[in-house]
């Protein structure tokens, strides 16, 4: 039973705004299927009595007080931006012509 289909990989690619070629889809679908299959083996071992683990440590309620600490300067914040304008991050067109 396949863990993930080629169509599902194409769908994820679209959601992630990744343009995938046909041969890439074949390639990734195969790889991802193997990975998912490997992870699925854990479910075979874990019985009803073992809840899925999202956090390995039994910690709860880690919170901080509502106190302001210095932020980065705008120059620092923007230092890794591929492009900027008006002290803002510049991003390509969001919606294509529709």
């Amino acid at each position, binding site marked *: 039973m396949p863990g993930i289909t080629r169509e599902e990989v194409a769908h994820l690619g679209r959601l992630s705004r990744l343009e995938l070629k046909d041969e890439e889809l074949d390639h990734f679908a195969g790889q991802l299927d193997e990975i998912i299959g490997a992870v699925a083996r854990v479910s075979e071992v874990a019985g009803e009595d073992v809840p899925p683990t999202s956090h390995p440590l039994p910690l*709860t*309620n880690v919170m901080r007080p509502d106190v*302001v600490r210095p932020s980065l300067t*705008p120059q620092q914040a*923007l230092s890794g931006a591929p492009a900027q304008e008006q*002290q803002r*991050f510049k*991003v390509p067109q*969001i919606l294509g012509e529709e």
Partner: protein
Amino acid sequence: MTVTDELVSYEDALESYDPVMGLEVHVELGTKTKMFCCCSTSLGAEPNSQTCPTCLGLPGSLPVVNATGVESAIKIGLALNCEIAEWCRFARKNYFYPDMPKNFQTSQYDEPIAFNGYLDVALEDGEIFRVEIERAHMEEDTGKSTHIGGATGRIHGASHSLLDYNRAGIPLIEIVTKPIVGAGARAPEVAKAYVTELRELIRALGVSEARMEMGQMRCDVNLSLRPNGTETFGTRSETKNVNSLRSVERAVRFEIQRHAAVLDSGGTVVQETRHFNEDTGSTTSGRIKEEAEDYRYFPEPDLVPIAPERAWVEELRAALPELPRVRRQRLKAEWGISDHEMQSVLNAGAIDPIVATIDAGAPADQARKWWMGELARRANEDDVELSALPITPEQVARVCALVAEGSLNDKLARQVIEGVLAGEGDPDQVVDKRGLAVVSDEGALGAAVDEAIAANPGVADKIRGGKVAAAGALVGAVMKATRGQADAARVRELILEKLGVQG
């Protein structure tokens, strides 16, 4: 690409269909810092000056939850009669859009901090409608986009966009109702009353100013129609970011009319996101809504679960303020006014200013008269909230006191208020500077008149002899003696009275 939607009349729509609503309200909390990092949330800062590696989503950064954000969420949940989760987690809502540099929004999915509540709202005629609450959960706001190159800053036709991440990560509480059924033709009114009541509640809790015009409270309206007498819900549309109380009402009304037209013509309602247009009161189609599973929610591994101690929850419950609706009932009785008058006070945003003015010593009717009259008119003219006028309840109370002791009449009091609003200082300073106090002390005025008569026996005799016009000289003398503070007409009356002459 402008498509004009067909509409049927509101009355005809209600003849055939029963509206079902779902309201999602986002409230920006008034915390000092963001939900998961220590950046300031203050408004008006220069672009990208309130960011850090965490809210910019830089590799290696780790979020830590704001305790006040959690506390505010619990307070809201309790005030909405919700159960508070014993244990809950945050979740990643994955999507690719530049308003969130992490490529996901930290939210809650199937384990909201508060769930299963209700809010009773009062309609215009005093009828109480219970709106059931599905959940209230914690999440974070997104960055602010500016679209360049298109017409009027719209995303359509823009060549590129600019992002300011100061707002990214500001705490949001999303409050979701269960399907609201049974409102019938009053659905738009119920929607508006619910959002109004929620705003009052949020303000009373002190967790946010909830100013809709500032985007601190935003409403998404889900609406569907089902044929009258049927049970199954129809397909819904979701109108996003409806940002005023009036717009909530209009959006519901418009969508009822639009859905009815689609269904009447044998068509199918498309499940989609729509945008509300403030100018026309209409909605226009947005993107086709992505299915929920496309967000690929999963538990946030970087934040440990929240398990609010029951003792803490009970402590917060015990400290809840009087609920706004209960408070309005009490004030209505204390002030001796009708449901309708109380509704006007609520709509004007005048409850808190009036209460504060009464607390500062003014009689209730006077406090209400000024805030609902002169001041409401000014706020309306200047298009600001009543509470934003440059006058304090204490200053209004002082004006009321000056009127009560007779130093000012209503006409002068209005001028004093005008002076305070114009920044001329406190009421007493305005009175001094503008020389507005009337000498209405009849004793003092009478004495000044007697002195003037005694000092000018010749003039007095002329007046006694019928030369009424000569009274002007005596009025002048009295005005001089009282340094212009007397009411000249009253002085003239007194002079003629004392000299036994008809004016």
